């Protein structure tokens, strides 16, 4: 079938589920999944090494966190230096929130999405402020638990990356090498990005306090990873050749 100007986009064009597509999708999924699964101990070791590297170079109690990471442990040593907000930092945070909320009032309607996002951040942070003012001792997360949770969820996303790419973007790609290398490159990106993101969180929480843990967890934790993946996926999809056929579909 030749491509004509009137033919529908490949995105909305219906395509039959073909056994060959599924089989190949499964095969191309299984490699990154298997690799991520098999290399989990090495990955954890690598993440620990990354954190130890920065711990040695940057110092500070927050970096000691690296020494306590152990995904095999059902609990994490709570003596990790998680600090709670002082009255002063709570007051400054309230002040900052009020100012930030005030700034959103000045935003043009064209920036409505940004206004919504900033206000959402303000509301989450305000809830955290209230919680820490009223009952800080019952906050369930410490720095190490927060970091552990982020890495665990990041690892989960890495496991899902292979199938999502193979069964989505991958079915438009003919080159076997590309279908293998791109998911591995994405995995490598996450393997490197995740510990650094956790380190950045740890640094912020150390310089600030656990007051910012909820907003970091909810807005800059796994959601951020997911948005990064979507951006990467979008980028990959956008560079696909226009005359690409779905594998298994007759040209």
């Amino acid at each position: 079938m030749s491509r004509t100007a009137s033919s529908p986009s490949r995105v909305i064009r219906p395509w039959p589920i073909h056994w060959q597509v599924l089989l190949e999708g499964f095969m191309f999924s299984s490699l990154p999944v298997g690799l991520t699964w098999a290399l989990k101990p090495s990955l954890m070791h690598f993440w620990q090494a990354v954190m130890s590297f920065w711990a040695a170079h940057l110092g500070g109690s927050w970096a000691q966190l690296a020494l306590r990471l152990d995904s095999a442990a059902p609990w994490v040593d709570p003596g990790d230096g998680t600090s709670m907000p002082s009255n002063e930092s709570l007051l400054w945070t309230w002040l900052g929130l009020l100012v930030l909320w005030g700034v959103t009032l000045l935003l043009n309607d064209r920036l409505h999405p940004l206004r919504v996002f900033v206000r959402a951040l303000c509301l989450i942070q305000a809830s955290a402020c209230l919680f820490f003012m009223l009952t800080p001792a019952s906050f369930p997360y410490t720095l190490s638990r927060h970091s552990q949770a982020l890495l665990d969820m990041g690892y989960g996303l890495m496991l899902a990356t292979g199938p999502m790419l193979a069964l989505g973007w991958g079915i438009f790609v003919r080159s076997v090498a590309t279908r293998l290398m791109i998911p591995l490159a994405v995995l490598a990106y996450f393997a490197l990005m995740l510990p650094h993101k956790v380190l950045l969180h740890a640094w912020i929480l150390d310089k600030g306090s656990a007051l910012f843990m909820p907003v970091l967890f909810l807005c800059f934790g796994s959601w951020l990873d997911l948005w990064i993946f979507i951006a990467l996926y979008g980028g990959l999809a956008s560079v696909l050749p226009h005359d690409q056929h779905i594998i298994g579909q007759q040209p």
Partner: protein
Amino acid sequence: MRKPHVWFLACAMAAMTLSGWSLQRANTRERQEPVSLVLLLPDASALKHPVTQAWLDAAQEEGIALLPWSDDTFVQALSNQRSIPGVILPDTVHPQASDVLVNALYQYAAQGGHVLVGFDAALLDPLQRTYAAPSSRLSGLTGVTYARYEALRENTTHHGPVYASAEGARILAIQPGKLDFDNTQPGHWGELTTYGYKTLAYNHFQSTATPDTQTLMQSSRGDPIVSTHAHGKGSVLFANLPLGYLKTRTDSYLLHRILSHFAIDMARQPVLSGTPGGIGGMVLNLHVDSNAAQAHLKTLEEAGWFDDGPYTIHVTAGPDTYTAGDRMGTGLEHNPWMQAFLKRQHDKGHDIGNHGGWIHNVFGDQANEHNRSRFEPYLDKNHQAISLAVGQRPLSYSAPMGNQPVWVTNWLERHDFKAYYSTSDTGLGPTRAYIQGHRAPEKGLWTFPISNFKRIATMDELHAHKLQEADISLFIQDLLEHVSQRGIARLFYFHPPVSREYHQAMETLRSTAHRLQAQGQFRWYSMVELADFQNKRMAVQWHVTHLTNHKKRLTATSATTLANMTWLIPKFNAQAPHLVDGSAQIVERHGQWQVVANNIKVLEIEWSESP
């Protein structure tokens, strides 16, 4: 666009005003808030728990300022860098703790704070209410790995006797007689004993200590029972026993000792002494059970025994002793010599009280919770006979054969008694009783526990336990020296008939007392006198505030008088505390500053804690 600008400015102004006001308020509050040890409680409801009450009572009786705080208050105080001299996690009432609280405790100790961890504190996850970790999350803090439920299951805890090393006994200031070093425990470890029990067994966690942990007490299997461990700049004391629970079950000794050691030696806090002028002493309690005592009382009086004192003499006043009609009692109503003797001693200042219920052994053997109507008249008759003999109502009491049903305690309260002897809580000074797990109502009635010598309390029992007179003589001497040195008061009792057979022990008692009295470090107390003092002491309001430049100020007030109230302040430097308000004598004693208040109602003193 004008409206958003107005909103923005209004928000900013409001926020800045609020910030300034709150910061100012926080700073002012910090300067004025009292500094004291903190008892951590999970929430307000825990304040009503008898075990919480037991911890607070023990602190008050030991003269330690202890404030109950919620976990939230502690975490907030820590994050605001408030000065906290020491933190106590009590047993039983605080089994659950969040990771944040545990983390805060680690931080607090690392920064130089002192923590006392009780038995099952902070073991459970607050959300799931199961063990939060394979071993206690505080194991790193205490230097002891314990509560290993996942690995040990039904063997997580053990039940058995506990032992103190000689060094542990010295550090914890365990008094003579409480430890029995004549046992099979390897090394020089003494078994903790109490009156009347062959073995005093406790539930404790199977545990192991790290090499840098100092074990002061241990189980027969070597599990640390009481241990200390340095963490960062601070220190941690771990008690592998449910101390508060034990106090509610009439076994207070270890709670009081451990709390006192923590407050004085580790957190270096000032304490309000339990004796007038901080002078240690003894309550000597004579039990006159029968007419067999009369000749011995005569001999003791002739020997000048009753020129010392004041002693507390308790008499069973009925005509019989072993059985009704045996005519072996003192028969006070028809015994002019005994009437005159008691009157003489009363006039000399001795405290004359009731020894139960009319017929010593009948009351001692048969009175129980269910026959109040039969035996209450025995108490009434005894009370009346003693009152008539001395011309004043007795205010102190001892139970024949240690048998005191709850209704007897209620009878004592109704008749405005101030003190009674007790065979529970052995080794302790005057204390407030717990009955069936609950604190007795606050009526100013004090319990005076006996000072046990291993498993016995007085000379009569030596033979049955294969002990020699020399053993108890040495015990008496050590005990008197101990109370004198520590400035505390304890009770020792005997029956006058033993005075002939155990002449050496009696002489040791008297001569040691004379020697220490001559040094100005000992005196005899009567039960009533000491109970009165305790009631005045409990009414004293005092607190310590933190000033600038490592200075502290103690402020004490009393609605009546502070006379003879004594504070012991740790000596940080050569500079003595100075009076800001009121009048007091300030002297150095045993490496502490001793401040004895004069007859005033307000006292303020300041001292520096700079080295």
